């Protein structure tokens, strides 16, 4: 029944999906945190930039962003992100696009977490002489992160599935292989089920694990 699978590197394709997810997750967590810091900063210019970034980026379809990294950054502006061969260039461009997009959602999840930190925590931190960056880094963000593990898990699951858009610029991840198999094999339903199952295998444990973490690290007040 599964004879048609021979000759396809199913695991290899999902491995690329995992790599896209991991690199993009780390990048968007860092960039999203910086954006959130900008959005609550006392400097109007930074606040303005953070707000503008989030409102522009999250309203552009991911496909447009990913295609732009290839057509705009690489083919027009010759930005190849330090890579020589097309496979690596496209992979890196896709990660860049995914980070750009996902960071906007990380930022907003984190900002809602920052809003759950009582004002008294900030006042107490300022009262012992901590500077604004210290208050953010030592008091506000640690508490904010703990309260948004659940929402961040949603963002991570969405990111995992969004990596399929990288297929549009030829990154050999799961969705590209699926397209190829659908063209070549007469097993449409089975192929769809296999790939759906593959993604569930990636995202379901993520959700369960982070749900457990969320309870574990919750701040008691």
């Amino acid at each position, binding site marked *: 029944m599964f004879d048609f699978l021979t000759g396809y590197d199913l695991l290899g394709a999902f491995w690329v999906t995992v790599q896209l997810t991991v690199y993009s997750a780390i990048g968007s967590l860092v960039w999203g945190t910086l954006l959130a810091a900008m959005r609550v900063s*006392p400097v109007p210019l930074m606040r303005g930039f953070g707000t503008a970034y989030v409102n522009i980026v999250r309203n552009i379809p991911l496909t447009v962003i990913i295609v732009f990294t290839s057509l705009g950054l690489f083919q027009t502006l010759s930005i190849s992100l330090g890579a020589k061969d097309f496979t690596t260039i496209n992979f890196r461009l896709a990660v860049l696009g995914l980070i750009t997009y996902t960071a906007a959602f990380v930022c907003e999840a984190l900002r809602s977490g920052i809003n759950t930190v009582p004002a008294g925590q900030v006042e*107490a931190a*300022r*009262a012992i*002489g*901590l500077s604004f960056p*210290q208050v953010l880094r*030592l008091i506000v963000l640690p*508490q904010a992160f703990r309260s948004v593990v659940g929402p961040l898990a949603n963002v991570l699951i969405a990111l995992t599935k969004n990596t399929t858009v990288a297929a549009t610029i030829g990154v050999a991840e799961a969705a590209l292989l699926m397209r190829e198999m659908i063209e070549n094999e007469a097993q449409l339903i089975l192929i769809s089920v296999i790939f759906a199952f593959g993604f569930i295998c990636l995202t379901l444990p993520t959700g369960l694990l982070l749900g457990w973490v969320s309870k574990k690290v919750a701040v*008691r007040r």
Partner: protein
Amino acid sequence: MPVRDDAKDARDDGRYADALVVLRNVDKHFGALHVLRSIDLTVGRGEVVVVIGPSGGGKSTLCRAINRLETVDSGEILIDGRPLPAEGRELAALRADVGMVFQSFNLFAHKTVLENVTLGQVKVRKKDKRAAERRARELLDRVGVASQADKYPAQLSGGQQQRVAIARALAMEPKVMLFDEPTSALDPEMINEVLEVMQQLAREGMTMVVVTHEMGFARSAAHRVVFMADGRIVEETTPDQFFSNPRSDRAKDFLSKILHH
């Protein structure tokens, strides 16, 4: 004009010539509400000033203005001869010298009791971690919560939390301590354990500004009572004078309402 008495005269005579906190002609509005009306107040080094008065009279705002948790519209505030700087590094440095204890404790919820007391020493005073921990344990012992050092704030009673908050403020070795209604959020049986720590501090010569409804504390620990109502300092005098012979009608009215029970 505020009614003034011995304490004020004494300060003018120079008994409190060593002024640590000075407010001159301070005004503040919250929208249409005029919460501080040309406040003049001087707190001498080692002096314990208790601010009392009806709710909404501007007591807390006054207290919070001293370390600029509230900004003021006009007037001047000096700590140890230096005007309060605007937001930034300098203000942070000044705040480290001004200890603050809040009504709702505000212990850092994600840090243990010990970490609460060491954080400022390490991050602001740049003390060595071990020295900071030693100091923290000393202070926790002094306020009677040494055995709780490794717990999280939510595991402690209100009274214990507030004593940890006092230790956290003392760890910065502040020049002056501000107490913003430190016992108002406590169950009655926990009020005394906090007041005792404050009494002890007062005896040791700490400069203190205490906003409170605890008249017993005002009587026994204060060098001076400042009575505030409607954004004004209505009367400032010794506790004896204030409780036995208030001069202003506003103070008489206030005392008649609270001292009957």
